[in-house]
């Protein structure tokens, strides 16, 4: 146990040295490290609890995605039927999880054929499963039911979350923050971590709006009062205006143009009234449609509608100007009695694009920079005091061998930092606690070895034979006892988030380095000492 070949000894020293050196970048400022080659740039990342910042967990409203998909299907069905010139007797309506189309019984088979064209094989990895985007069933009596299979909805949700992540990213970047982290969590959640953000209120406001923009015609044939009493034509809807007093406006259900066709939006001031407005510009196809719409509807009012139609994000009419003349250059402005901030935010939202579905904040954890600083300080002091106490105790108990143990622990801790940097791991306050705890536990492997050596000495073995036997017997125990703790750390890593996961990481890495140092570094030190002193007695 005490013999090391020269190469093996060299390999051990080199490994320990290289791992320890990985911790070096942490001692330099970030700016300095950035000038180094890429492979040397790995360093510890401070968790949000230490550097301050905001952690938001957002959930995509999957019901809204589903509803949206059904409404879209209803629109498609309406278009197909119109193109095929099939009259529907009972109209087209979304009922529960299905779109119902009612036609005269004689037209049923023709309608079925046409509607089946809407259904396509489901793409992506489900393509081979034979699933389709729409199920068309004949319910008899001229009633045709269109449903969307579960797989297609899941696929749509997945797409919606992907799109949302991109849009969230664009909106967060508008805040000008450093290195935000935006990640998908599970099927329908998005994790947003913004270091240094003290008050996430504005961020939540920016993320809380879908910013779905629609251009529709106002129906002037019905007065809002009549509509409010329930006389709404089948293809009309009532929305309120966004500014106070909130008056109802009757608009057509048909969406003529949507915010997807915008190419730019900027906050500016109206040239005449000098109130804040948002000017927008359509892309080429949007501009063409806009020109056509404005040409066909001169002297009629159209409504600019914003929102997704949920309780938290209702559809509201931003403004309903009358089209004075055809607008051919594809740009316009929205004036909705905005404040400067509101106009700015709306411009940001329109530029970043609309969220496919509303997002809800389901978890928020924000740490101010003051607390973060205090935590770092507290963690540092605890780490120093803890280490010094342990070092003292080991010196008192084992003297020379205590010194050996302390050297091993120092190398151990340096290796923990090296590995954490190598993995770009996140250091949290519980993570620091994990390191301090590791110091307390790491000496345990030395204690196990030393106590075993003492025992073997008492049994009458010679010094060198006792040391040898002590290592051989203790190392098996060290392995067993550390694996149990490692299992606990691994479980913690998988169930934990944020600070707790940071603890699991340092605990787990601490166990690995502890076992490594016990098997190699401590042994190497003691072996070197034995070769140097050829001891007759062990001062232990």
């Amino acid at each position, binding site marked *: 146990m005490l013999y090391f070949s020269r190469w093996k000894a060299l390999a051990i020293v080199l490994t320990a040295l290289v791992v320890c050196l990985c911790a070096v970048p942490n001692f330099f400022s970030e700016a300095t490290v950035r000038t180094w080659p890429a492979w040397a740039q790995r360093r510890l990342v401070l968790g949000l609890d230490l550097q301050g910042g905001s952690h938001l967990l957002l959930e995509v409203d999957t019901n809204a995605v589903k509803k949206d998909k059904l409404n879209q299907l209803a629109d498609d069905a309406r278009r197909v039927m119109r193109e095929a010139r099939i009259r529907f007797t009972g109209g087209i309506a979304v009922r529960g999880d299905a779109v119902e189309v009612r036609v005269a019984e004689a037209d049923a088979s023709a309608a079925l054929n046409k509607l089946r064209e809407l259904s396509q094989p489901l793409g992506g990895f489900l393509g081979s499963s034979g699933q389709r985007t729409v199920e068309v069933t004949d319910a008899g009596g001229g009633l045709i039911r269109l449903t969307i299979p579960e797989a297609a909805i899941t696929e749509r949700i997945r797409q919606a979350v992907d799109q949302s992540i991109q849009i969230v990213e664009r909106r967060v970047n508008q805040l000008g923050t450093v290195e935000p982290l935006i990640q998908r969590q599970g099927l329908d959640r998005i994790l947003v971590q913004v270091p240094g953000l003290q*008050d996430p209120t504005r961020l939540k406001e920016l993320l809380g709006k879908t910013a779905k923009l629609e251009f529709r015609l106002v129906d002037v044939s019905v007065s809002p009062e009549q509509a409010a009493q329930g006389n709404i034509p089948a293809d009309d809807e009532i929305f309120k205006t966004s500014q106070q007093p909130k008056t109802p406006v009757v608009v057509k259900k048909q969406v003529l143009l949507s915010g997807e066709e915008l190419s730019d939006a900027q906050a500016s001031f109206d040239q005449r009234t000098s109130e804040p407005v948002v000017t927008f510009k359509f892309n080429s196809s949007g501009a063409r449609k806009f020109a056509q719409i404005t040409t066909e509807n001169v002297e009629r009012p159209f409504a600019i509608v914003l929102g997704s139609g949920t309780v938290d994000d209702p559809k509201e009419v931003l403004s309903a100007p009358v089209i004075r003349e055809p607008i051919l250059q594809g740009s316009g402005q929205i004036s909705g009695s905005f404040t400067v901030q509101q106009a700015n935010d709306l411009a940001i939202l329109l530029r970043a694009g609309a969220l496919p579905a509303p997002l809800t904040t389901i978890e928020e954890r924000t740490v101010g920079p003051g607390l973060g600083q205090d935590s770092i300080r507290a963690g540092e002091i605890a780490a120093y005091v803890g280490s010094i106490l342990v070092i003292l105790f080991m010196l008192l108990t084992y003297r020379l061998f205590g010194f050996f143990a302390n050297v091993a622990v120092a190398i151990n801790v340096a290796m923990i930092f090296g590995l954490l940097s190598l993995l770009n791991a996140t250091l949290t306050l519980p993570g620091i606690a994990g390191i301090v705890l590791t110091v*307390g536990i790491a000496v345990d492997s030395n204690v196990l070895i030393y106590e075993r050596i003492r025992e073997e000495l008492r049994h009458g073995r010679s010094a060198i034979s006792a040391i040898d036997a002590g290592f051989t017997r203790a190392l098996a125990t060290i392995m067993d006892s550390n694996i149990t703790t490692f*299992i606990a750390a691994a479980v913690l890593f998988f169930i934990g988030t944020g600070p707790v996961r940071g603890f699991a990481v340092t605990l787990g890495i601490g166990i690995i380095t502890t076992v490594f140092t016990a098997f190699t570094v401590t042994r190497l030190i003691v072996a070197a000492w034995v070769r140097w002193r050829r001891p007759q007695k062990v001062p232990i």
Partner: protein
Amino acid sequence: MWILLGLGALIVVLAVLIVFGIIPPLRIVPDDTKFDFIRFRRVSFPISAALSILAITLFFTHGLNFGIDFRGGTLLEIQQKTGPADIASLRATLSGLGLGDVQLQQFGGPSDVLIRIAEQPGGDQAQQEAVQKVRQALGTAVEYRRVEVVGPRVYSELLAYGTTGLMVAIVGILIYLWFRFEWQFALGAMIANVHDIVLTIGFMSVTQIDFDLTSIAALLTILGYSLNDTVVIYDRIREMLRRYKKMSMPELLNISINSTLSRSIITHVTVTLALLALLLFGGHAIRSFTATMMFGVVLVGTYTSIFIASPILIYLGVGTNRRDDTDEKPSRP
């Protein structure tokens, strides 16, 4: 800072003294102890049973002080920018907001206050609005050191995660021990394990320490380290079982515990020192975490591995054939 300098100086002085051989080595446990730990089981088992029942009763009557991780709601840690915080006036301000149960608590320095707001009815959005109201009411006179909002969907998941995690860890460790030792050892370790967790939960119930995600972390760590201790003694028992085929079980267990006693105590001193430093200097954020760990690892863990985990092997039938047929045939290796 002065603490560090003082301790550093102490190290230097001690190192010099030790090198010159002036201070004798510290011996906490004398060599060759011969305590009869196994006979003590007639006391320790009833005591542990009674304590466990007490802990379980406390859990059901007193309950745990669930933090927002597991109960939902809002937690704000604020610091008055000038002068000490006036809790009474803060309370008056906040209770006027109609947010239901609002708890205020001095936390750390005189200007630090912890505000807990119970979960608001009306889903995730309502929680967000509550924070907004508090921020508006308190204005800019305070610094928001920490704001945490946990919505209804998240906390039920966290609770499920936490409980499953504990179970998975116990089963995982059980399987590992089953492979490395015999099934009786695995079972014995698991009983000791559950005993540790039950007592620690009792401790949390008595002290009404915040029970949150870090508490689960503390419980898992306690699990790991208590087992660490148990495994060290079990390792020795296994070694003794192989070497002394005719020794009676209680004697064998006693020798095993006694010969590892010095190690158990020394390791616990070092762990206690590390935890003590964390408890005293590690800040409020991890205080309940370290306090729980202190109780579980230092108080319960050691006791369990010596007085529960080892003697229980007798009841689980390790080496039962020893006393009966020691002279007739050699027992199986």
